[in-house]
């Protein structure tokens, strides 16, 4: 039997230096002469606005893209990294911003295939024993036999991180790893990684939009602005405002309106009423159990919960992606099942999680994607014919109003950076009057300016009388935006509270209490 390389001790943290890296996509200079240095064992943060080129930089580093110019030094020696395989051999691993799990394979299979050199014949008993021993050392549990495609975003992200730890990397690159994790989960994961870095087992390069994480974990930061190097410094010597200013190059936007200044919720009938709703998951098991909820006009109802407790299914039922198995959903007092005609009639719009997958057609242009809601209605269509001029004009307006960074409205939407896909969907969903808005993790991957902008747009819609159902794994966001908060756990609503009187610890207890219960029974 071949020796298993995994059992050999990793040779410890590596020292990385990047010199003058450049990368163009057509006419777009995504990266222009960027340099950075990560000493062995340090925890380095890469900051920048949406579309600044952060993902492009790290993708060049792991051989996913080939840079046009520039050199990479590992332990002071120049290296070529033409493919991810080479990166892997050097001990460089990455958690991508989009998921790279193989959906139909189980978590266990996904972890095992990540090991670069598999033997021709796998011994599953041995692999499973090794996996189990490894899982023992982790602060969180994972369902090893579930297909990865059936996991919620937060769980997928944990698998991605764990996969890299399993491989004992010398440099770990994380592209917005915590966007879908709860505060505690993020602290668990980053704490573990930080510990490894401190022990000189690992160097870390993390891309994040959360200053909290930068201050708590990073040793140094490098800032990019529009593809260029914009600054560098030790975290201990920088304030958050200084970092934010480096990112945007000017003063910083204010966050959402304080709660006191909000218009009161007008009296009236519920806009969305859900009674005894049940639904089955992908594997035929119940994921929603007797949900009762109402959302009133001009109100934001926040749904808190650890990912994977039925929030995804609830959103899917409401926007017509999943059939309910029992109960009642009413909008404007009329039965509703999420058909396109009903969505248009009741003015129900949505911003689901993973918008590129759930709310866009990746291969279509930005202009086409922006028209997905109304391409078949006047003024974009007349008696069955599409008015392309009107469609393009609409796209141009949206791109301008929502400041979507794109290489023209004819670029495929999948070439946009994560944050800009989000902006595009937001533009499409919020540019017309909306009666009911269904939102899941709306600031997943947005930079702080865009977060403030999105939050104020949601509050503006609320002020105009839109009823908003907001699912989020970020309690701070829920506390800031919601009027009422409910906690969802194992497909049930387990707690409800007026947001003005909500206590973050109490919410956390209701989220985690049932989570712990789930682990005990699993």
């Amino acid at each position, binding site marked *: 039997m071949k020796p298993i390389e995994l059992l050999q001790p990793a040779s410890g943290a590596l020292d990385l230096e990047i010199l003058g890296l450049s990368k163009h996509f057509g006419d777009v200079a995504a990266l222009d002469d960027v340099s950075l240095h990560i000493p062995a064992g340090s925890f380095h943060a890469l900051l920048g606005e949406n579309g600044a080129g952060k993902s492009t930089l790290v993708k060049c580093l792991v051989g996913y893209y080939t840079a046009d110019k520039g050199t990479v030094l590992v332990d002071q020696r120049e290296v070529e990294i033409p493919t991810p*395989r*080479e990166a892997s051999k050097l001990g460089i691993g990455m958690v991508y911003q989009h998921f790279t799990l193989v959906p*139909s394979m189980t978590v266990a299979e996904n972890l095992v*295939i990540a090991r670069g050199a598999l033997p021709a014949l796998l011994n*599953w008993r041995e692999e499973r024993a090794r996996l189990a021993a490894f899982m023992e050392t982790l602060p969180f549990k994972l369902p090893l036999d579930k297909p990865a495609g059936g996991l919620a975003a937060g769980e997928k992200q944990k698998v991605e991180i764990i996969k890299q730890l399993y491989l004992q990397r010398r440099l770990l690159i994380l592209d917005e790893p915590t966007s879908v994790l709860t505060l505690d989960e993020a602290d668990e994961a980053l704490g573990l990684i930080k510990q490894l870095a401190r022990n000189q087992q690992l160097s870390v390069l993390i891309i994040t939009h959360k200053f909290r994480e930068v201050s708590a974990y990073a040793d140094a930061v490098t800032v990019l602005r529009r593809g260029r190097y914009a600054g560098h410094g030790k975290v201990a010597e920088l304030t958050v405002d200084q970092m934010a200013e480096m990112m945007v190059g000017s003063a910083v936007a204010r966050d959402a309106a304080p709660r006191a200044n909000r218009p009161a919720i007008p009296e009236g009938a519920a806009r969305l009423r859900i009674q005894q709703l049940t639904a089955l998951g992908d*594997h*035929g098991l119940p994921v929603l159990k007797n949900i009762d909820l109402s959302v009133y006009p001009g109100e934001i109802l926040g749904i808190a919960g650890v990912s994977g407790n039925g929030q995804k299914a609830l959103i899917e039922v409401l926007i017509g992606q999943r059939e309910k198995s029992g109960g009642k959903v009413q909008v404007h007092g009329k039965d509703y099942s999420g058909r396109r005609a009903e969505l248009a009639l009741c003015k129900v719009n949505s911003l689901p999680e993973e918008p590129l*997958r759930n709310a866009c057609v990746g291969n279509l242009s930005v202009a086409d994607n922006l028209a997905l809601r109304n391409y078949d209605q006047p003024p974009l269509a007349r008696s069955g014919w599409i008015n392309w001029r009107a469609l393009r004009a609409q796209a141009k307006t949206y791109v301008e109003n929502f400041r979507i960074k794109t290489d023209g409205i004819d670029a495929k939407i999948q070439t946009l950076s994560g944050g800009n896909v989000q902006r595009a969907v937001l533009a499409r969903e919020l540019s017309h009057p909306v009666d009911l808005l269904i939102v899941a993790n709306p600031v997943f991957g947005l930079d702080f300016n865009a977060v403030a902008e999105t939050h104020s747009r949601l509050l503006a819609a609320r002020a105009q009388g839109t009823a908003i159902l907001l699912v989020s794994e970020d309690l701070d966001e829920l506390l800031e935006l919601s009027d009422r908060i409910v906690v969802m756990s194992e497909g049930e609503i387990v707690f409800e509270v007026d947001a003005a009187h909500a206590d973050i610890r109490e919410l956390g207890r209701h989220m985690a209490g049932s989570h712990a219960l789930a682990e005990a029974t699993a």
Partner: protein
Amino acid sequence: MSTAGATIGWWGVPLAVLAGAIRVSTPYLLVSLGECITEKSGRINLGLEGVLIMGAMAGYATAFATGSPWAGVLAAGLVGAVFGLLHGLLCSLKRVNDIAIGISIMLLGTGLAFFLGKPFVQPQAPMLSSISFGFWSDSTQIQSALQINPLFILGAVLAFALHFAFRHTRLGLQVRIVGDSEDAARALGYPVLPTRIVATVVGGFLAGVGGAFLSLYYPGSWNEGLSSGQGIIAVALVIFARWEPLRCLWASLLFGGASALGPALQAMGVSSGYYLFNAAPYALTLGILIASWTPNRALSGAPGELSLVRQ
């Protein structure tokens, strides 16, 4: 009716159905296993009908020329592999759709086989001989029912081997990764296009061998009406079998058994509803597909990169 037939009476029907199932299912089995490999890698090859006919012709011609039916089988496989390579390479070009290429390959294979095969319609090539598993019985009916063709045995063994390989071998996992998520494959450093091309070549090889079965075993001749769409049905069987090699085996047997029901009953003297029985396999497939469909579940098992299901 023979005396042996009389001794086992109506038992003749299930026996004949079993024998028929094995005989009829062989080309379905081989083609669907080939297509299963191809589709697992994220490509769909609709051209296997053409590859099948080309294989039948090449196999027959080679067996006639060399006098060895096994040389014919090998030649049929190689011709199939060449067609697979053609499909694999063409589909690797940018902006090329595998379904359109598949249909062209189907037409090309059929046309070319009819053109090149003209001189072989008359002469008689040596046939593949079967293996008898019925030596323990006196009944000629049992003996003839247990005459099993070697290609079926090959296919059945292959189905089990593939089932194992997709879970336990590096190559099997590589094919699944490439077929399920191109992003993941690239991130893990697996070569996407070469894997797909090889998977398509192997698929073509098996389809070619399936063709050789038609011309060298059953019905065992070469003419233009040899295939009745087996190549197309086999592609559908893969979807029916949810991309699982073992289920391809059961699905092929089920389909073969349903096809054999009509002739078996007719041999027993039941002639009413003959045409209805001939439609049985198709009706059965449709019925099972509809019965097993649920709106809430995704088409489970479908490789994520397949152009049929890609979101």
